[in-house]
C-alpha cells in the first residue's frame, strides 16, 4: 500500500524516539478522550435497581424509573444518597464521577473549591469539576483542530494544486484573490459571523477553515509549479503516460510531502486559536467545556490557582507533544536527508 519511500520514512520516524512516543501518548489520550463519557461522568456506568440492569451513560431513564416523581432524567447523584434506592439497588460510577456541566452548588463554602478528595483539581467559579472540564475540553479542542486541519488540507490541496498545475492567467488571478482574502482581519470575521448567526461549533470551524487553508495552498501551489517543470515529469509524458496518471501518480505524491510535514503545526495552530478565541469569549458558546474558558476563569480568580495552573499545564503538554510529533515528521520526511545535508 505504501511506496517504499514512505515505508523508509515511517521507519525513520519510528527511530526518532521522542516523536514516536509523543505520537503514541497523544494518540492514546485522544482516543480515550473520545470515550470521555465513560471516564468522567455524573451518570453511573451501570445501575442495578430491583433486579434489573440499567446503563445510564448510553440511555435516558426518567426519575420515575427509580421510584421518583419527575418525568425528567434521574438525578443520579442525589439518588446515590437516597436511602430508599440504596435498599434496593446500587450503581457504579466512572473513575471521575463528575460531569463537565454539573455544578456542586450544594457544597460548603463558595466556589471555586480547592482540590480535595472528591474533586482532584478542585472546582471552578461555578462549582463545576475542573478535571472533568479539562477532559472534555481536551476532546473538543482536539476534534476541532483535527477537523480544522483536515478541512484546510483538503481545500489547500485542491485550490493550490489546481493553481500550480494550470499556472498562467488562472493562477495569477486566483493568487491575487487569495491575497485580498487573506488580508481580511480574521478576528473581526469570527466576531461578525458569531454575532449574526450565533456561536456554534460547526460555524466556528468553517469560519476558521476558510482562513487556514490559505497558507497550505501556497505550499501546494509552489510544489506543483516546481514539480511541473521537473524533467522527470516531461520524461513520463515522453513515454506516453496519461496526463491524469501523471497528475495523480507522479506529481501529487511528491507534492504531499511538505503538506504532511506541516499538518502537526496546523493542529498546533488550531489548538491555540480555539483556546485564544474561547479565552476572549468569541469561541464556543457557554457552557461548553473549553480550555480557553477555563483560562479566563483562572485569570479572574487568581486566588484559585488550581484552575489556571492545571489548564496551563495541560495546554503546555498537549502543545509540546504535538510539536515533538511535528519535528519528528519533519525530520523523517525531509527530502534533504535523502540527499545530502548533515
Amino acid at each position, binding site marked *: 500500500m505504501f511506496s517504499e519511500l514512505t515505508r523508509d520514512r515511517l521507519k525513520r520516524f519510528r527511530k526518532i524516539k521522542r516523536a514516536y512516543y509523543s505520537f503514541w501518548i497523544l494518540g492514546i489520550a485522544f482516543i480515550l478522550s473520545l470515550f470521555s463519557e465513560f471516564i468522567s461522568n455524573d451518570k453511573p456506568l451501570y445501575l442495578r435497581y430491583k433486579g434489573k440492569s440499567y446503563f445510564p451513560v448510553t440511555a435516558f431513564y426518567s426519575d420515575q424509573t427509580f421510584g421518583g416523581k419527575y418525568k425528567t432524567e434521574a438525578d443520579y447523584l442525589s439518588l446515590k444518597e437516597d436511602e430508599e434506592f440504596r435498599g434496593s439497588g446500587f450503581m457504579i460510577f466512572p473513575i471521575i464521577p463528575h460531569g463537565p456541566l454539573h455544578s456542586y452548588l450544594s457544597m460548603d463554602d463558595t466556589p471555586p473549591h480547592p482540590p480535595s478528595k472528591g474533586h482532584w483539581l478542585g472546582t471552578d467559579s461555578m462549582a463545576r469539576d475542573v478535571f472533568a472540564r479539562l477532559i472534555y475540553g481536551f476532546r473538543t479542542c482536539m476534534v476541532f483542530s483535527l477537523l480544522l486541519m483536515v478541512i484546510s488540507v483538503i481545500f489547500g490541496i485542491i485550490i493550490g494544486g489546481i493553481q500550480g498545475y494550470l499556472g498562467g492567467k488562472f493562477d*495569477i488571478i486566483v493568487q491575487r484573490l487569495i491575497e485580498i482574502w487573506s488580508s481580511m482581519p480574521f478576528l473581526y470575521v469570527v466576531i461578525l459571523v458569531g454575532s449574526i448567526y450565533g456561536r456554534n461549533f460547526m460555524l466556528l470551524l468553517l469560519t476558521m477553515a476558510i482562513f487556514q487553508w490559505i497558507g497550505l495552498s501556497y505550499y501546494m501551489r509552489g510544489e506543483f509549479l516546481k514539480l511541473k517543470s521537473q524533467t522527470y515529469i*516531461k520524461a513520463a509524458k515522453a*513515454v*506516453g503516460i496519461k496526463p491524469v496518471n501523471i497528475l495523480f501518480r507522479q506529481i501529487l505524491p*511528491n507534492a504531499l510531502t511538505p503538506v504532511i510535514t506541516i499538518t502537526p503545526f496546523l493542529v498546533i495552530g488550531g489548538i491555540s486559536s480555539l483556546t485564544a478565541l474561547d479565552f476572549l469569549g468569541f469561541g464556543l458558546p457557554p457552557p461548553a467545556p473549553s480550555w480557553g474558558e477555563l483560562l479566563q476563569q483562572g485569570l479572574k480568580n487568581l486566588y484559585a490557582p488550581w484552575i489556571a495552573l492545571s489548564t496551563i499545564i495541560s495546554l503546555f503538554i498537549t502543545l509540546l507533544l504535538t510539536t515533538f510529533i511535528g519535528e519528528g515528521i519533519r525530520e523523517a520526511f525531509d527530502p534533504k536527508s535523502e*540527499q545530502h545535508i548533515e
Partner: protein
Amino acid sequence: MNILDIQNLHTFFPITGGVFSKITGYIKAVNDVSLYIKKGEIVSVVGESGCGKSTLGLTALGLTPASSGTIALADKKIDIKKQHSWKPFRKDYQIIFQDPFTSLNPRHTIYKILSEPLLLHKVYTRKNVREGVIRLMEHVGLSTDYLRRFPHAFSGGQRQRIAIARAIGIKPKMIVCDEVASALDVSVQAQIIQLLLQLKKEMNLSLMFISHDLSLVKAISDRIYVMYLGKIVESAPSSDLFKKPKHPYTQALLNSIPTLNRNKKPAILSGEVPSPINLPSGCVFKSRCKYAKEECDRKHPEFSTIGDTHVACYFPLS
C-alpha cells in the same frame, strides 16, 4: 522515408514581467530551423551551450510547445498546436534527457521506472516484465541487484544509464539523445555508443544525437547540423564537416577541442555573445567572427550549397 522532418520551426519563450505577467519579449531559443532525419540515420546537432539544442529536441517530440513551423513524423504531418497529436507516436519516438539527476522520479524505484513504459506499451506482460527489466539493466551495464533502489543512490553515470534503458526498452524507431554520453567516462561512453550503434543495426533505429563532444559526434554520426543562437549555420556529412568546415563557427568549435597534446592549447572564441532576446541584425555570428565584414551586417545569410554542405555564411571558408 524521413523519420523526422522539421521545416521553419520556431520555439519562442515569452519573457514576462509585472503583476499580471505581461509579455515583454521573447527568447528565441529555436529560430527558423529546418532539419530532417532519414530512417536509420544518425544525425547530430552540435552547438554552444544555450543555443537551443535541447529545445529543438523537446519541441520535435511535442514536449515543449512550438511557436510556428511544421513537424512531420514518419511522413505524417503533426498539428503542432495540439499536444495530443503526438500521442500515437509516443512509443516510436523516445528521448533521453540531458540531466540524469532530474529526469528520474525520486519516489520511484529503478524497477518501477523501467517497468512502467514496458507495461504501458505492452512490450511485456505483468508476468514477465521483471525479466524484461533485468535484460535492460544488463544491456546498459548495471547490476541487477539494484532494482529496488531509488535514483538518489546512483552516481551520475549510473543514472544516465537508467535513463537510456528506459528509452530503449520500448523499442522505439527514433531516439533523441540529449547529451547522453557527457556524464559518462570514456570507457562506459564507448560501451553506450556501441550499444546505440548495435540497436541502430538491429532495429534500424534513427538517432538525433545532441552533443557538444565533437569526437563522439565524429565517431557515430552520418550527418551533422551546427547550431548557433537558435539557428542552423551549417549542415554537412560527418566526414566533410571535420575535414573542411565551411562556417567560421564550425571552425572555432573544432579548434577548441582539448587534446592530450599539452602543446596544443584549445583556442578561445572571443567576442561578445549576443543575447537570444535581442538578436543582432545581420549574421548572428558576426560579433565573434574573425572574418566579419560589412556585408555581414545586412541580414542573416541564406543557405548556400557547396558539395554536400549547406552553410549560412556570406564568406564560407574554403
